[in-house]
């Protein structure tokens, strides 16, 4: 049963429509991440679920109850804010107790719940400090603790890690995941960071310009993106795109790049793309499928000039020119060429994508 359901939810500010008819069903205990660039409507969607913004259209159901006209405080949700929104005049314990005190939860239970959550979040030593005496990561944990003590039906996270440095962000990401594995409360998490989306989500909702581009488990989005936007947004470094023409060569198909390089399409894809032969399309390939020379089925070797070499330790990123278009390749550090040299690289055509130039849909 859907625990949280959005039906044709939209939001306009004056004449500007920022969220367009969003449909989304989230199962009980599911961890769903809304991801997209800034201004894509993900935070607005979350704020509508939280009850901080009213939808201009559509319905929001929480636990089977229509909540469009229910105030934030009566929705049984708990939100964690990007800025943490901790009260500077209150101690950690008072911040965490705030909601419970207003609900008039008995003192003994407040103390007990705070102690339990503080123990989980490793905050027990900090309960009597004030927010300004805490580090960024500690504040973030207090903000989560304040949400957890309420034992809500749904957790809402609004970019909770974006104020932390990269290292701490990685650590807190793992902690959030661990927490969800422990308590398994329905969670909606908003971020612009596709790594967070991939690592945390049961299902990822990719949003762009107020619309949902694609919904699916992280690996599905990565390997089977539905659109150019998703293909380019998920994964780092991003997918490479080349202008091309799909041509029939005998009973096989070939992707012909702008300089005339022909790349054989694997036989397994022939049926899928046959109808598009003769069209101008876009050819997409992830950096990890442009590698040093490898003997594998369905690879095509090309010789390209190397522009920049970025050693990452476990791998090396090469910026190369393929048919005049910049592309990124991930290669074995042992096989690293020098900038300015010509390198022979293998294209893993088994992982290719073809995209419609006009609609941006993956074919």
């Amino acid at each position, binding site marked *: 049963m859907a625990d949280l359901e959005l039906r044709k939810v939209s939001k306009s500010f004056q004449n500007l429509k920022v969220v367009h008819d969003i449909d989304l069903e989230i199962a009980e205990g599911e961890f769903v991440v809304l991801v997209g660039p800034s201004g894509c409507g993900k935070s607005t969607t979350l704020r509508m679920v*939280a*009850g*901080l913004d009213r939808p201009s259209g559509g319905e929001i159901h929480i636990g089977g109850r229509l909540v469009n006209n229910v*105030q*934030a*405080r009566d929705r049984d*949700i*708990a*939100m964690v*804010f*990007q*800025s943490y*929104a901790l*009260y*500077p*005049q209150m101690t950690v314990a008072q911040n965490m107790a*705030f*909601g419970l005190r*207003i*609900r008039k939860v008995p003192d003994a239970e407040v103390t007990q719940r705070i102690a339990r959550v503080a123990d989980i979040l490793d905050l027990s030593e900090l309960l009597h400090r004030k927010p300004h005496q805490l580090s960024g990561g500690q504040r973030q944990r207090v903000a989560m603790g*304040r949400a957890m003590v*309420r034992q809500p039906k749904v957790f809402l996270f609004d970019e909770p890690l974006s104020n932390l440095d990269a290292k701490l962000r990685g650590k807190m990401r793992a902690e959030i995941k661990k927490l969800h594995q422990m308590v398994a409360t329905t969670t909606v998490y908003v971020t612009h960071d596709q790594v967070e989306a991939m690592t945390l989500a049961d299902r990822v909702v990719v949003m762009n310009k107020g619309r949902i581009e694609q919904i699916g488990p992280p690996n599905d989005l990565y390997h089977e993106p539905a659109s150019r936007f998703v293909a380019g947004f998920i994964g780092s470094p991003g997918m490479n795109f080349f202008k091309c023409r799909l041509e029939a060569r005998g009973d096989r198909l070939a992707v012909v790049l702008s300089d005339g390089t022909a790349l054989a399409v694997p036989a397994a894809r022939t049926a899928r793309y046959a109808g598009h032969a003769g069209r101008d399309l876009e050819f997409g390939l992830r950096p990890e499928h442009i590698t040093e020379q490898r003997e594998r089925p369905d690879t095509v070797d090309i010789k390209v000039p190397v522009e920049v070499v970025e050693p990452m330790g476990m791998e090396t990123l090469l910026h190369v020119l393929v048919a005049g278009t910049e592309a990124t390749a991930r290669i074995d550090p042992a096989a690293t060429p020098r900038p300015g040299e010509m390198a022979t690289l293998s294209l893993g055509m088994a992982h290719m994508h073809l995209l419609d130039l006009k609609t941006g849909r993956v074919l």
Partner: protein
Amino acid sequence: MGPNRTWLLIAPAMLVIGVFMVLPLFLAVGYSFMTANPYGGVTAPATFDAYLQFLYQRDFDDSLVFSPSYALIILRSVYLAIATTIICLVLGLPVAWYIVCQTPERRRILLFAVTLPFWINTLIRTYCWILILRDEGLANGALRHAGIISDPLPLLYNDGSILLGLVYTFLPFMVLPIYSTLERIDPRLIEAAHDLYAGRAAVFRRIVWPLARPGALAGATLVFAPALGSFLAPDLLGGGKKLLIGSLIQMQFTSSRNWPFGAALSTVVTVVVLTVFVIRSRRVEEERR
């Protein structure tokens, strides 16, 4: 420049502070221990007479007689200054909150409106209140015209009209510091409170007020201090019938030609205000900790 010469850089600032702030204070304190010269100014010998005058009057036979009239003036002044501060706070907080909640453009207009009275001379503004409040003034005229009253209400020349004048003059000093404190509040703090089950009243009591308090304290100091020494509103709107410290001090340097007593009164006002100020900044510091 060597470290022992860096003081040269702050010397001009120290000179300004010294000449315009510290020196006059010392002069006032010094004068308060001198004897009055009947033609103005002060002469030797040094004496505590000026301070004795607060509570005693020197009789013809040179004996000291208890006389509470000056003490009462001081008490009345403090009472009126406190009342002014409280009324300004009650009026100023909602006004500041209302301005903070507006769009940036409307905020600018409203803030300008708050500071608008500063552009007009205080004397003129205070006279305007006389025109409004007097028996044939606008207020009574309007009430009579509406048929609510037949005889004019005594709106002028009482504590009420003094209070009105003081509140009117000093309200901006309360609104502006509270505004600047509230403006810095992260709106998420209020949203988070709604998320944490709080209604409007709880949000105000538990979040907005505690966060506005430093601004309110600053505003209270800015209102209390000048209200205590004010003499324009009491003289014009109080009709000079009931003296306040400000008018009393002014009289000592003009008609009464008792500079030491005027200086002593000024010193007392300064000490009272400084005490309030010190207590306040201590409390703010404690809250920060």
